[in-house]
């Protein structure tokens, strides 16, 4: 069940990280890397709701720390059985970050392909966690890729994979629901930050002798974006709450709905922010493109809206008909 004071503590801590341009070590020291891991295994014992809240808040910076990669790796390992899982988890409890391995399409978790979230991991080899045929694997990330997102590093994973444990289909499905929800939250934070910054700019920038934010054409555009962001936040929280009350069927469906909605909304809202900035929005110097770039990657990870709408149609709305 949601606890408002705890939410406030998490949000407050994350805002300080963002304001001070914190590094991974600061985030890990606060225990956020393993926030969702059972307390008995050295984690924070928090639910999906809190993990999603951290993802949302850190995305606002956006802060180039591998929180999402680490949170997804921790959750995947925690759902697996096998002696070596404990060892890897211990390293993450100790503050080491991790990337998550996905197929080259970015659509699902894999054992080789692309390690996502390698930025800000510091020197040394970047650990990555993935999954294939019921096996949870670890690998070291290879050559960095020049990704669209300036705050989330990518690297190739072509081999050197080591199995650390086994995971059944049901747990993998639950993990996928969690992954979609965390990415949705990341998109919510990205949208919120882009919109807030654009609105602030519209209050300062003057044309025709008035702030451009006083023009109804600009106001209407911004107001529509806020409706979208609030809706995205509502469905993301609903998905996280379903995970936390172990309603696995609800969690699967709501996480699909949330990720489908947030994927589409994420690009729309961050594009609208660039529009509000006008010409300045087209410059590297303006922060607007950082949020757009983050949204572009997050919307593809674990499925964009087209993919997920198809999943919803085939797997839910028209399930008995087959596909």
């Amino acid at each position, binding site marked *: 069940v949601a606890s408002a004071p705890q939410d406030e503590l998490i949000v407050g801590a994350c805002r300080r990280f963002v304001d001070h341009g914190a590094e991974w070590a600061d985030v890990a020291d606060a225990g956020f890397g393993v926030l969702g891991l059972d307390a008995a295994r050295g984690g924070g014992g928090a639910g999906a709701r809190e993990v999603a809240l951290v993802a949302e808040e850190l995305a606002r910076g956006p802060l180039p720390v591998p929180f999402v990669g680490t949170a997804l790796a921790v959750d995947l390992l925690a759902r697996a059985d096998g002696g070596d899982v404990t060892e890897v988890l211990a390293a993450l409890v100790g503050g080491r970050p991790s990337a998550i391995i996905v197929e080259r399409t970015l659509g699902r978790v894999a054992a080789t392909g692309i390690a996502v979230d390698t930025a800000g991991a510091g020197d040394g080899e970047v650990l990555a966690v993935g999954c294939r045929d019921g096996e949870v694997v670890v690998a070291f990330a290879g050559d960095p890729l020049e990704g669209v997102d300036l705050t989330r590093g990518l690297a190739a994973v072509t081999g050197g994979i080591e199995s650390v444990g086994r995971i059944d289909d049901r747990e993998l499905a639950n993990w996928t629901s969690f992954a979609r929800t965390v990415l949705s939250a990341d998109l919510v934070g990205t949208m919120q930050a882009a919109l807030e910054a654009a609105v602030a700019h519209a209050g300062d920038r003057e044309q025709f002798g008035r702030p451009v934010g*006083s023009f109804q054409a600009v106001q*209407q555009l911004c107001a529509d974006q*806020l409706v979208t962001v609030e*809706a995205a936040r509502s*469905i993301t929280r609903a998905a996280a709450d379903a995970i936390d009350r172990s309603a696995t069927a609800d969690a699967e469906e709501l996480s699909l709905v949330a990720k489908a909605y947030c994927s589409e909304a994420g690009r729309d809202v961050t594009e609208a922010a660039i529009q509000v900035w006008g010409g300045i929005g087209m410059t590297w110097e303006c922060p607007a493109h950082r949020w757009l770039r983050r949204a572009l990657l997050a919307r593809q990870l674990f499925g964009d809206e087209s993919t997920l*709408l198809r999943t919803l*149609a085939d797997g839910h709305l*028209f399930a008995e008909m087959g596909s």
Partner: protein
Amino acid sequence: VTGGLDDPRLAEFRNELRAWLAEHAPREPVPLHGEERARYGAVWHRSLHQGGWMGLSWPEAYGGRGFPAVYEAVLNDEIGRAGAPAAPHVGFLGRALLHHGTEGQRRRFLPSLLSGEEVWCQGFSEPGAGSDLAALSTRAVLLGDHYLVNGQKIWTSDAAWADWCLLLVRTDPDAPKHRGISALVVDMATPGIEVRPIVQINGDTEFNEVFFTDVAVPVDAVVGAPGDGWRIAMTTVGYERGPADVGFSSRYARLLAELVALARANGVDEQQRLALARAHVQVEVLRAHVNRSLARRDDGAVPGPEGSVDKLLSTRTEQLLHHTAMDLFGAAPLTGDGAEVLSAYLYSRAASIAGGTSQIQRTIVAERLMGMPRSG
């Protein structure tokens, strides 16, 4: 009750309601037009009242049951799920009387409003005062112990059979426009009131024009104090936009389920399947949003500008659903087969106009929620 619609503490209430609806919800469809539909609605209103489902969140002193506002949302939720007709919207107007009326007015009017014994209409908009409601020009001049009212109202639902009207009038033409307005409770049987139905784009006659010519209204019919009219109007529209009242998302879920069932029976192409999946996403998002709004809502407080976000999202959902329905039915409703689908679609265009247009809602969101500079 902070868990929103799914709070386990509501389960018993929900079950009781579900059982009652299974037995009492009308089986015959809502008539499409005018007086016939009003009569049908009146029967349903009295039935809900006898079942104890009207005024769930209203104080017991005025015929309510004193529950938190979320119970109203559960009622709407279950009604939608059962495919029953909407509960009468007594809340908007009733809340204005509850917040601003005298004790005498509350005791006189609220119980019969809840029970459906007396029907009310809302005399707000005028031909020259739509989005700019504060520009209204219907005059009320004080002559001793009564006001003399002259002017015209428009878009007045139910005026043709209403017993009472909550009427906004200008009592002080010299005051700034928002301050010179008062709210009166007017007996619709008073001489000098003429009601003319307006035929809408779907052929229905839900709305009316109402003409007031030298209508005498007793001075004690003022709600609150003279000059309080704007505040009272804002309370009313605040509830009109609020989540408990627009939170009728289960009706959308039911409509969508019907469309999906139809699509399964007839077979549809990939594009239509995706359109239905998109509508499903929008319905689920609205439900989650209404739920979050309810959980955040402070019981008893008048809903604020955040209600405009809820209304805009609800409007998106309603209009997307009816587009989806029309596309799915294709030629049928265009060629005389499927009048209710066409009628519902046409009516859905009102979602972005009634209760404050989407443009007005966005201005409220921009200026009052996001703090953008006021537009000129």
